[in-house]
């Protein structure tokens, strides 16, 4: 006998569909389009949609709303998923402000014409000035460096003084780092090595050669900062090259013991890894105005103070780029030997360099 979907099943389906539509009917959009329409109707401030990967973003946005009366809708996630969202939304962006670590992705967004140039009024220190792009397409709000070499002084044979040291027999099999394809902060580090060893003129060859030698000396590659730290704690490695804020946070959290005594050394040269804010060029003018106010608030003493208290064992451990703001006491002096890599040169090479790393070093 042929069995066909019967009416009773149709009714069942109808119940399900009705339930699904009821959910859809309950939609209370928070996207920019609707928010703008609502804002226009109410003539009040439009909610500013902030996509952020910073540990201190929730307190900062709350403080911003308290200070200005502008409501903020926050999407807080890791840099990867946020950039995926931004890319997927490209033909109809929903974000007003994008805030994450690393300027190479922002340089790419600028080259695609997605960022609104803006010059905040806050005075910058020397490091901050070095980080500002000529186009002013994004604003550095703070900086960390890549890499901090965190090592277990209870087990490690000694502290290295240069990246070349890590190629020596004393370090064989003891060094670990993150995978640049999975760890946002690590591509600038790899690009920084290439910049340091070969320069923009020399290209990637010398850096690739260095990484091959490191690999030959037993380099371990882990997905992200947390995994490399875990390998350090479990004794799989004695030296981990990770982001300075993660390394400093580890020192702040861990009480040294006979088996584990973490210390940090910064090798010449440390590559700057700024926390960067960009404004959507396609946003309505009202949203852009709010976004500019947001950038100004972040760069103000009040905003910087919230940044420094919002994630005390994580992202708050940054070096300020605003003149007159001092770093938290847990941080050492800013590494004397540092470099800023040109994100407009190295950013477009990210795919190629990560593929090399994936197939040759990992």
């Amino acid at each position, binding site marked *: 006998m042929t069995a066909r*979907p019967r009416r009773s099943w149709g009714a069942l389906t*109808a119940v399900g*569909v009705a339930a699904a539509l009821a959910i*859809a009917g309950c939609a209370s*959009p928070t996207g920019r389009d609707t928010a703008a329409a609502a804002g226009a109707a109410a003539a009040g401030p439009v909610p500013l949609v902030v996509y952020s990967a910073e540990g201190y973003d929730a307190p900062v946005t709350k403080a911003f709303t308290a200070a200005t009366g502008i409501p903020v809708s926050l999407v807080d996630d890791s840099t990867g998923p946020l950039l995926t969202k931004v*890319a997927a*939304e490209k033909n109809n962006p929903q974000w007003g402000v994008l805030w994450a670590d690393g300027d190479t992705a922002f340089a790419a967004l600028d080259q695609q014409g997605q960022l609104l140039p803006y010059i905040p009024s806050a005075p910058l220190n020397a490091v901050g000035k070095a980080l500002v792009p000529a186009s002013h397409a994004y604003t550095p709000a703070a900086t960390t460096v890549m890499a901090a070499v965190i090592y277990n002084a209870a087990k490690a044979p000694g502290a290295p003084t240069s990246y070349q040291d890590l190629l020596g027999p004393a370090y064989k099999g003891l060094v670990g780092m993150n995978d640049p394809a999975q760890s946002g902060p690590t591509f600038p580090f790899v690009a920084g090595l290439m910049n340091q060893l070969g320069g923009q003129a020399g290209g990637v060859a010398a850096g690739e050669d260095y990484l091959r030698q490191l690999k030959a000396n037993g380099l371990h590659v882990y997905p992200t900062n947390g995994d490399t730290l875990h390998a350090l*704690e479990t*004794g799989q490695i004695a030296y981990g090259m990770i982001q300075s804020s993660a390394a400093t946070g580890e020192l702040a959290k861990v009480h040294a013991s006979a088996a584990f005594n973490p210390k940090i050394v910064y090798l010449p040269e440390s590559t700057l890894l700024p926390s960067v804010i960009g404004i959507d060029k396609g946003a309505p003018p009202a949203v852009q105005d709010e976004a500019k106010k947001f950038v100004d608030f972040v760069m103000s003493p009040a905003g910087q103070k919230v940044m420094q208290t919002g994630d005390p064992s994580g992202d708050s451990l940054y070096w300020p780029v605003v003149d007159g703001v001092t770093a938290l006491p847990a941080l050492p002096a800013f590494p004397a030997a540092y470099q800023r890599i040109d994100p407009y040169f190295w950013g477009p090479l990210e795919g190629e360099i990560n593929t090399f790393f994936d197939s040759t070093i990992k």
Partner: protein
Amino acid sequence: MTAVAFVVPDRVRLGLTRFRGAPLLAFWVLIVAILVAPILLFLLVAFSPRLFDQGPEWFTLSGFGEALRGPLLQGLLNSLLVGIATALVATAIGFGVAWAVARTDVPARAVWTGAMFGLLLAPSYLVALGWERLLEPAGVLELLGLDVTAVRALFYGPVGVVVVLAVKGVPFAYLAISSALRGLGEEFESAARVHGGGRVAALRIVVALLAPAVWSAVAIVFAESISDFGVAATLANDAHFPVATFTLYDAVDSFPIRFPVAAAVGWMLMAMAGLALLAQSRALSGRSYRVLGGRSRPARRHRLSPPATAAATTGLAVVVLAGLGVPAFGAVSASLIDGLGSLVGDHRLTLANYARVLASPELRDPLLYSARLALITATVTAVIGLAVARILSARGTRLSSQVLDLLLLTAVALPGIVFAAGYIFTYNLPLINDLGIHLYGTTALLVLGYLATALPSTSRVLLGSVGQVQESLREAGRVHGGGAAGSWLRTVLPVLARPVLAAWVLTFAGTLLELPVSQLLYPPDHPPVAIGITKALANYDFGGGTAMEVTAVVLALAVVAVAFGGFHLLAPTGWRRIGRTHD
């Protein structure tokens, strides 16, 4: 039938017929909205990046070029091998567990049944991480003084990936097969024995009659395994053993973002699932497996000899230990012990992580929010899944059921990130916004995304049971004067109540800790619990992150207990009797 029916004008009758077709139309509209359109638009990017501003070309095959060489090709091949191995292993084990629990007097049957649901609740990444906690350097086993170097070398690779995925696949196979086994009365075995067949002949008949469920199990475990992301992102990634879902994720999650390449990998995953479906339909075509009717008789339990009892119990214990014991130990110890798996501190027991987690609204609110969404998703999915399973189990060569079948299995094979990105492509289109549909960035779209990820596997799990229901059951109700809905409620619902509850629980648990769809679709200011957990773990707050996980899993277990407890206490005796065996 009353005379009134004869005087209803044709026009009205035509109108009524149309009205009766409306639910089916609405069903297809929903399927297109939540599955077809998002998947299609995502996959379209492989050919035409320009359509969604993802590249300059209107038509290109370069995404496929990239997907079919180097590490991405390796990932696809690894996924294929892992999928086949996992499907075979999990189905064999699932069959064994289902048989032992439903047809033998093996001790502690309720424990094993509960453990199968426990396995469904455990996210695959938790199972993988549990194993890693045991085997890693300075991990639990090494702290206990065992040298596990050789085991670690073996486990950190394809073997470990297959073991974890097989353990996660067992409950899917178990559900598909045990539902069918419950519905298969004793009469078929008895018939074989009466006609002089031995135990082997009876078993052969049972296995043959369960073929739809077995194939369903193989297909669903295969599709679930190749689309798994939890193991791909943890054990496989740590072992530098690339699988397709991770390479797909990598293409859209690391800069530069390459949607066309990800879409090409998506096509390959779909093709693999399509092959599994083809094998399934080839194996089953032209036969009927309708065995559950009004005259089905409960089966008797086989009495196991003492050695067989010991062997069966040990086997069940190993499966449960591998899938539940290890991750539970890993998660609970990591959340309770200060500095487990590290050289830090003196490994004190502490509840500080839980105190911190429970005191913080940053966890509490997301957990409650996720629980609400899981509740809605599970309910809607169970209802629609039932309808889907009914359409799929219709015999004959109806195009709609074939299309739906293909669609659902291929949807199982696609990782959540594909749905999530596809939802953005679809519901953030300016054209859709111009039509007045503003779903992107809302809770509603997140729920629809959850529904889309849950529906394929849920309806395939239900298929095993729904496919067994003979039409005669409901027709008998109609003959005796019941209305369409009334006779369905009185005849079919009791038969399906238990599998539907199982499907509900499965969806609830899966949705509660869902990550990829949550990540890309969660509405601003309302992060689901998985986002909070991932953030804590990414910031190396290992204790806090795992304490959140354990809290969420405990909540899921509590809901499961309430659901099954409620069924046991409140459902009519007849509902509970279906599928039971004589003790």
